[in-house]
């Protein structure tokens, strides 16, 4: 059913911390690893070892350079996957009912056996979160690892999305945004979590934490390292045995 639910019981989603993400792409790989062999069709690659490889990914990490009016530019790594929007335009455009938003937890999914591969949902998504799999001809997107988070066969510590589980710098957090006391809601409150493209009216569930202000390098080039005087080289000229060794080795 491609009409959106008026309300969902939970709003599961991710918080992505642009301050701590180091751009390692581990989340991209763990996402592809998990999702190519679990829910739905595999994530195919075309020409993977050839000159022009491409493939289906549900999570991709961009890197942006931001130049403030004054001071040094910042490099910000920017992971992007489906934001499980409350007003998901990708769902309402779908002619077949393959795309839907779950009432129980707000996850946006594609029922692949109903998908005709028309691509319209990917056109409607402003974030580029949907990719048509070239081998299967069906639409693929982030499932929020729906087959992990409720999976009783996994140890409890693993019942979170693969990207969150794998992130080495703790830049990704998973939780329920409908609960104001949840860790993710609190984090968003504390750090001023933001929406991407709010003007598109999609009301994304996933939030991004802006980078914290960076340290400023001092403007004058005077001594800034108070330990520097103690680190002056002590022996400038070698003496005795070392001097002999030095000269001997030089002659060889």
């Amino acid at each position: 059913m491609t009409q959106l639910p008026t309300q969902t019981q939970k709003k599961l989603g991710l918080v992505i911390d642009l301050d701590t993400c180091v751009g390692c792409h581990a989340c991209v790989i763990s996402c592809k690893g998990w999702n190519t062999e679990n829910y739905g069709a595999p994530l195919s690659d075309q020409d993977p070892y050839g000159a022009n490889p491409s493939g289906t990914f549900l999570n991709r990490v961009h890197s942006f350079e931001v130049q403030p009016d004054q001071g040094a530019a910042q490099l910000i790594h920017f992971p992007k996957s489906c934001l499980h929007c409350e007003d998901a335009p990708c769902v309402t455009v779908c002619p077949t009912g393959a795309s839907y938003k779950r009432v129980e937890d707000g996850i946006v999914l594609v029922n692949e056996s109903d998908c005709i591969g028309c691509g319209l949902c990917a056109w409607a998504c402003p974030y580029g979160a949907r990719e048509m799999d070239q081998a299967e001809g069906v639409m693929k997107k982030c499932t929020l690892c729906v087959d992990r988070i409720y999976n009783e066969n996994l140890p409890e510590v693993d019942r979170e999305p693969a990207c969150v589980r794998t992130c080495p710098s703790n830049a990704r957090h998973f939780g329920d945004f409908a609960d104001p006391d949840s860790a993710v809601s609190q984090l968003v409150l504390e750090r001023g979590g933001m929406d991407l493209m709010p003007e598109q009216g999609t009301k994304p569930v996933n939030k991004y934490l802006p980078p914290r202000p960076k340290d400023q390098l001092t403007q004058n080039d005077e001594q800034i390292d108070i330990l520097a005087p103690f680190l002056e080289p002590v022996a400038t000229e070698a003496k005795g045995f070392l001097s002999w060794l030095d000269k001997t080795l030089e002659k060889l």
Partner: protein
Amino acid sequence: MHPAPSVIFFSTFSGLGFGLLGFLGFGMFVPTGWVAFVFFAFAYVLAVGGLISSTFHLGHPERALKAFSQWRSSWLSREAWCAVAALVLMAIYGAGLVFFAQQWTLIGMLGAIASLATVFTTSMIYGQLKTVPRWNTYYTSANFLSLSLAGGALLADQGNLTLILMVVAGAIQLATWLRGDTAFATSGTNMATATGLGSIGTVRAFEPPHTGTNYLLREFVYVIGRKHAQKLRIIALVLMAVLPVILLLLPFSHWLALLAVVSHVAGVLAARWLFFAQAEHVVGLYYGKR
């Protein structure tokens, strides 16, 4: 946006076919017997041929029937319904004219409305997309509908009405282009809102997520041929409206009329190619492209 030939052909020819069906249905043009058969057959070849070619770009055309299920929310689904309704009603109306020399006016009217509604729903598939600011306007619907009507009038030999509709369609095409050229800049979506980093400074794409290309870049960031856009626009407008009008003003001959049709179709095809090739999807911003 990637200008998929199947979609360009679909929207051009089915627009023309449904335009012709519209004139037939409204009874502006009432052939009977063999002549009726030829006209209806021609309209159906255009409309159905267009519809079939649109299934070529589906990943799973065998499931196309499922596309009828979501008419409450999806313009694509509504298009499917309108198209079938138009084709069924007009088949009944056509059968009356061809085999019984009867004009069932009410069925014709309903068929004509469904035909034009099909063109409108097609235009709304594009017009609804906020992600493509150039399309996200009622100009898109006006553009599709006016071309369909002008083309239909040309095929249904509507005399002076054809001339008026041609001029109107040409003017709306021009207005659509001019409005479209500023649409992205005025949409309010830019790299600052896309990344949320605009409050820190000027955002520049530094490294893309992948070294090769991907589905998103192939489908949404199509820039080939954009530099020829202005020339192509002039060619499209001349072929689509200017030349047909001149040919129709000349003393009537079947060859000139045929030439006018060919010229019009070629012009609409060129304009439809531009419609896709010039459309910029906001996702390109994440790649620092448009």
